[in-house]
């Protein structure tokens, strides 16, 4: 019997990413945000999540991917981290998938730059790769 893991998947610039399902508090549609002047470009703003103020991090920017076209509104994947609840802005939400542990592989050495620290590895699905996001590292603001 091989262990399995469940991931909540989402899409960023055509790539499929996943975070452990236990980490995800909820998924919500686009929310009005309050921008934060002087903050790092990675931080998109603050949202009001039922009385709780949550910082929204644009994962495209965090992963050095090109900005999303302005007419496309991002969705929020609200995750629990050691530093509290953080919202990850993604293009679109996918399914929750269950994958077998033996399909996991570490990223190749050729993966460099920011993504090296953020992508823990990939699960080889039948028609695509599921990139596993390191949530704790992902919600850190890079030093500028």
């Amino acid at each position, binding site marked *: 019997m091989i262990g399995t893991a469940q991931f909540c998947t989402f899409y960023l610039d055509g790539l499929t990413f996943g975070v452990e399902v236990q980490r995800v508090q909820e998924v919500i549609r686009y929310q009005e945000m309050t921008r*934060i002047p002087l903050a790092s470009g*990675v931080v998109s703003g603050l949202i009001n999540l039922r009385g709780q103020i949550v910082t929204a991090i644009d994962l495209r920017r965090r992963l050095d991917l090109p900005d999303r076209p302005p007419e496309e509104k991002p969705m929020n994947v609200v995750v629990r981290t050691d530093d509290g609840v953080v919202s990850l802005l993604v293009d679109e939400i996918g399914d929750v998938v269950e994958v077998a542990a033996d399909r996991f592989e570490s990223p190749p050495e050729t993966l460099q730059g920011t993504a090296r620290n953020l992508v823990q590895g990939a699960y080889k699905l039948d028609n695509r790769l599921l990139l596993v996001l390191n949530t704790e590292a992902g919600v850190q603001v890079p030093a500028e």
Partner: protein
Amino acid sequence: MPELDEIVKEFLVESHENLDQLDRDLVILEQDPTSHDTLSSIFRTIHTIKGTCGFLGFGKLESVAHVGENLLSKLRDGDLALDPSMTTGLLSLVDAVREILGNIETLGSEGEAEYTELIELLIGLQESRLTGSSETPAREIAGPPVPPITGGFPPALRAVQFIEESALERLIEPRSDERELAAHPADGRHAAVSDTTIRVDVGLLDKLMNRVGELVLARNQILQFTSTLGDAAFLSTSQRLNLITTELQEGVMKTRMQPIGNIWGKFPRVVRDLSLQCGKRVRIEMEGKETELDKTIVEAIKDPLTHVVRNSIDHGIETPEARLAAGKPAEGCLLLRAFHEGGQVNIEISDDGAGLNLDRIRQKAIERGIVTQEQALRMNDRDVGQLIFAPGFSTAAQVTNVSGRGVGMDVVKTNVEKIGGAVDLQSQPGQGTTIKLKIPLTLAIIPALIVTCDGDRFAIPQVSLLELVRLDGEQARKRIERLHGVPVYRLRGHLLPIVNLRQELGLASKSTEGETNTDEVVNIVVLRADDRQFGLIVDSINDTEEIVVKPLSQQLKGIPVYAGATIMGDGRVALILDVLGTAQRAHVVSEVRDRGLADNASRQSQHNSACQTLLILEVGDRRLALPISMVSRLEEIPRDSVEHADQQEVVQYRGQILPLLRLGQMLGIATLEDPSAPLQVVVYREDGRSVGLVVDRIADIVESAVEVTKKTQSDCLLASAVIQQRVTDLIDLPSLIRRSDRAFFDVPANTPGVFA
């Protein structure tokens, strides 16, 4: 952890409180060994502990407390005089009791240690000074002291205790309260309080607080609907909701608040022990003990504060010899101050020691590789001072067990920053060092001014707010001047540095001309940061509102201009500006400057300027004028709120008693005031004391060059002048106030004449 009986738990909690009280009392007693009240209080406390633990079967604890009690009873009867060795002995007794209590709490038993040494020491202390002949029956029964007993509780001891108790009762002065105490040793002087108080888990209060925070937000949203709906029944219901919510919020806030005095209480002991150890003489003073902080914050700053206090004694204050050589009193002074400011609690720990040795800090920092030589030379004095907060920094020539391990101030800084606070340091060579901790009230609900800038709303804590200035287009262009390119505004003759919020936040400028666009209105929010004033230009000023301060997430902690965020009535998030951070970013506050100097300079300029802004008042048919810089506020006070105290009319005003002076009566002018209208009062403030001048009407504010036409006869008027084509008397406010209250100006030696 073993299960403890309710009664044992109760005993532990109560005894811990008693021990804290003991520490304080003993230090007080050492300073004033003759204080009978303090001695009685100490005696009662030890007696209570001894009585209860005897009842619960903690034999070891009882025998320790017993010898202490014997010593104390001799002290109290005046058979022995207190000396430092006795105080030390009694303090170590307190420590031993604390240790045993700790063991009971964690292990469920009294632990292994026997405390024979301590017991012998305490016995030795009382026997060595005995003067044979004057022994009383009580002492015969009480001593020889009971030998240390482990384990059970022999019946013999019970008997001894019983006899002693009754003998004591006969012996001690027949003060009724003490007799009551002896009768109920278990609940002691907490008896009355314990009936009306309960202990509540802090976690529960946290939850309650969060719920109330959400309720406040929901209330704000409902209040916004009332303005659009216009339904009378809904309006009155929501007003009731508003009222109840506010009261509930205040109530819940109060349950979590604790005076900072609770953690300061142990400092006299810390200071005493440390200064003895270091061979120094230090006196501790406290101001603002009653300043309240949230319980969680009180816990979090306990250790950093202790560290700073230890550091001040070890490094700050010099030895008595060095102090005398420097022309200072041999006894050093450590001052703890706490006060609320800008939605934060400020705690200052000042010593009057040698101050920071900046050269040595530079040198040490280079040695330890914290900065390079080049960097050190380029740093200004303030930055060098900050180096002591760097990890691994310590200048102590040798490592003492007090401090000097290099894990000092950086730990303080990180701990304070962890709860969202800040540490600052000011030092004057030869005069001392002040460490300032700014602690946020993270859970607090504070009044704030809401402003808009580039479409976003920002909240500015009301406490930093001084006034609002609005300039129309033409005025704006003329009144905002440039001082070598830096915008300034003349606020009643003083230059006020101007900071544009858009620029500071890196937002788009409104136009290429920036803040001096021709037909725009300029709104200036005059703020105070660190004794400095500055004007902040915002796009528009919305309203004041009660906001719930929520801390920013760790991703945003590094931005100094924000103090937190809040949720507005419409459900959107608004950022709270950190006034000090904004001022620092705009370089309004940089090097430390002497506040006194700045104040003097401003007073000077006030005298020299021929053109003054005057408040014009009317009493009867006379016109009177006061410089507006002497006016703190204008108030309308309902007539029925006037009370009488000390043959004077007074009103309750902002938690103080405000004496009222009827200007008409004092100057002998018949007044023409409308008896149904509220009193028009001009409030004057000087060094925290206020006085209210009652006038008929507040007529106008004019800016005018005062041309003195005639010296007056009355000693309360300085001169007469023509203002706005009418003869106006200039009031000599200080002498007017002095006439009614001679002592008013006693503290500030002399207030300069107003129109001098």
